[in-house]
């Protein structure tokens, strides 16, 4: 189930940019918590929960590493825990480090989701409108790269079965690699001749080329974009007016829970959990319909 991915690329792109911006420009623990949780939950819908668990094995140590590094360089804070080389290691600095680590990891998880959701053709669609020629070239390049890789692999393997370029000496291998490479270049050119012919045969070069895309901007996309804009605006307003600000130095601020702040949290969490909620809703609807059959 990838309900969220079905939105128009513009919506998706706008969403990821908003979330990344918000995440990168805040160190507010509540905001970061929402962001991280939203990203992890969404990732576990996109991939298998197992894959996300496995990835935690990478991100948790990374989190610790960043969190521990900060106090080595920052000595501000009213609560020194101990002194290292005559410099205080403070509780505040550790908490600040933890927040920064949370930020980095949220960003990484969001990027992970971005990679699955905004595929190369969606990206090309968005930016190809600006430069149509470039988008075609990119598309052709994207076709060619896997082909090229496969050919390199094939040729090197075949050369090995002829007992060539497989000796232990580095020079020999390097030379072999170079020869394979030059052969591949010829092969690519040869390939390109056919591809060019195939393009010509299908009318490439005729004036008035249009640019097709499989994406359609539906009213649903419009509504989504509107909602996103409102949520982003709200969050930015909250950050700008310091409603959603938080300071670590010299003393960790208390979390204020005034109605305005709570409203701010609500807006940010709505934004961060949106994709996850859409996926969950779609799953429920699906199960509901299935049970009806």
């Amino acid at each position, binding site marked *: 189930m990838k309900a969220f991915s079905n939105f128009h690329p513009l919506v998706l792109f706008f969403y990821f940019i908003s979330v990344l911006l918000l995440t990168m420009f805040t160190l507010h623990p509540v905001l970061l918590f929402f962001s991280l949780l939203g990203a992890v939950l969404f990732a576990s819908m996109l991939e298998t929960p197992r894959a996300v668990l496995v990835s935690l094995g990478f991100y948790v140590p990374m989190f610790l590493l960043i969190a521990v590094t900060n106090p080595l360089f920052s000595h501000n804070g009213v609560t020194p825990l101990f002194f290292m080389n005559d410099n205080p290691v403070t509780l505040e600095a550790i908490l600040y480090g933890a927040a920064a680590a949370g930020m980095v990891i949220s960003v990484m998880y969001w990027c992970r989701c971005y990679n699955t959701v905004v595929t*190369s*053709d969606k990206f090309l669609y968005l930016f190809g409108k600006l430069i149509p020629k470039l988008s*075609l070239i990119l*598309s*052709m390049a*994207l*076709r060619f790269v*896997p*082909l090229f890789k*496969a*050919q390199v692999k*094939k*040729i090197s*393997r*075949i*050369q*090995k*079965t*002829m*007992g*060539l370029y*497989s*000796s232990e000496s580095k020079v020999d291998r390097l030379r072999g690699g170079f*020869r*394979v490479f*030059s*052969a591949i270049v*010829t*092969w690519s050119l*040869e*390939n390109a001749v*056919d*591809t060019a*012919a*195939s*393009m*010509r*045969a*299908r*009318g*490439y*070069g*005729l*004036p*008035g*080329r*249009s*640019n*097709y*895309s*499989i994406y359609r901007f539906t009213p649903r996309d419009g509504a989504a974009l509107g909602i996103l804009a409102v949520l982003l605006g709200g969050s930015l307003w909250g950050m700008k007016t310091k409603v959603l600000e938080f300071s670590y130095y010299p003393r960790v601020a208390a979390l204020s829970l005034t109605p305005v702040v709570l409203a701010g949290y609500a807006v940010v969490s709505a934004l961060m959990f949106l994709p996850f909620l859409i996926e969950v809703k779609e799953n429920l609807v699906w199960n509901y319909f299935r049970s009806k059959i």
Partner: protein
Amino acid sequence: MELFSIKDLSFTYPDEAQKVLNSVNLTVSEGEFMVVCGPSGCGKTTLLRLLKRELSPHGKREGEIRYLGTLQEELDDRVSAGEIGFVMQNPENQVVTDKVWHELAFGLENLGLPNGEIRRRVGEMASFFGINRWFDRKTSELSGGQKQLLNLASVMVMQPRVLILDEPTSQLDPVGAAEFITTLHKLNRDLGLTILLVEHRLEEVFAIADKAVVMDRGRVLFNDTPRTVGGLLRDCPEKGRMLLGMPSAVRIFSGLNATGACPLTVKEGRLFLKAHASNQACRRIEDGELKPLGKELPAVQTKELWFRYERNLPDVLKGLYLTVEQGEIFAVLGENGSGKSTMLRAISGQNAAYRGKVELFGKKLQSYKGTELYRHNVAFLPQDPQSVFLKPTVKQDFQEICSAMGYEKQEAEGVVARLAEQLEISALLDRHPYDLSGGEQQRAALCKVLLLRPRLLLLDEPTKGIDAYAKNTLEQILKELQQQGITTIMVTHDVEFAASCADRCAMLFHGEIMDAERPREFFSTNTFYTTAASRISRTLYENTVTVEDVVELCSRNGGLQ
């Protein structure tokens, strides 16, 4: 209505004296399915390319080509691009973009159609060709057959009036090829689309075509219905050469010098034999004795071979047992994905099996050190012979091997000259490997690996992409090599080739080798996985599997009545 009319068309490539096309006259009518055949170099590809203005080769052209009455030079660009569709030989190189949907839309984008219309046409074509299942995929993930279907669909989406195809199935496996031909037939039958097809695998195509054009040396020899052409070929002075690649029924008809209507399909062939060769006094052809087996150490012996590519992928080889005696030509047949190529790689040391053992000439594979295995022992000819060459000329590629093998300069020249002579490539030594035709490329590649002086030759799909004539040459070469004591193992889809070339055949299925048999035994007991000649003659004779078998047995029984 005449779609194409070609008058006195001649063509000469630059720097060449001989005309590739010599006053060709041809008309193609609307709705016709025309198949163009003939031996390599007869000019059929050039003819086809000249019909599509955008692909016309450079050179000197005489005569005229009209499309719907308009001279080709005066055709509107959009008409020329859109109404005349062209599909080329190599499925890979024709793909332009990275996504299937984009590829389908590419031609329509070029024509400048609005988004809505592109969407409708792309959707329609995708569902007609059954592409909707892989509509969102990357083009690089498709199989060869899928790629070629995609190429066809992305031409069809432009709604051409005529479709020109240049050996579209030569790079495909039999299943993909059959599917492709079926699709073409459907397009012709259901949409009335005009089709002009060059093919060398004619077994299925010949019967569904309306017209067969046979070309030789730049001229049109015959241009008539396939049945008539089949009859005419019987009396052709060079019929041995011209008949190669023709359907088995036609070849049997011609081989027996029969009269009457020429059969085209297996069914017709069987009825024809029933009616005209009812004498069954002799029903078997006895196989000659194989060299006594088991006296020498086997060339290859594998025991309990297990292999998989990744730890969490399924096994490809599942306890494979295989014994190939020295001096044999051994063919392994099997469907796509049955593990044929994997098996060859395991034998040639490219894939290491995780269980079981491989012995070559009685010695364990692992105990061949360094490059010892690949010099004087095993040579491997890959499916795609192009990947064997790295140098700008064939000769330089050969020289590299010679110096790697440590031949003296004079010795090297002698060896190369002798092998080139044997493989009929002496004239090609100074050419760029990529400029050779499929068959030539393959022989040159074979020559390169033979310079390694192997005792065991491994061939992966040796008949892929080569025409019937080149196949014939290859068979002779393999038999000559056999005389020199070289053992050959090939994996192939090509039942006809295996039937006439191999000493023993075996089927690879489910990661295991089923029992190996002599070809006559093997193919006459198979029902589907067998040659057309066997299917034609099986009710009449017991073990005839090639056209030659059928003709011989029929003659022994007194010929046709």
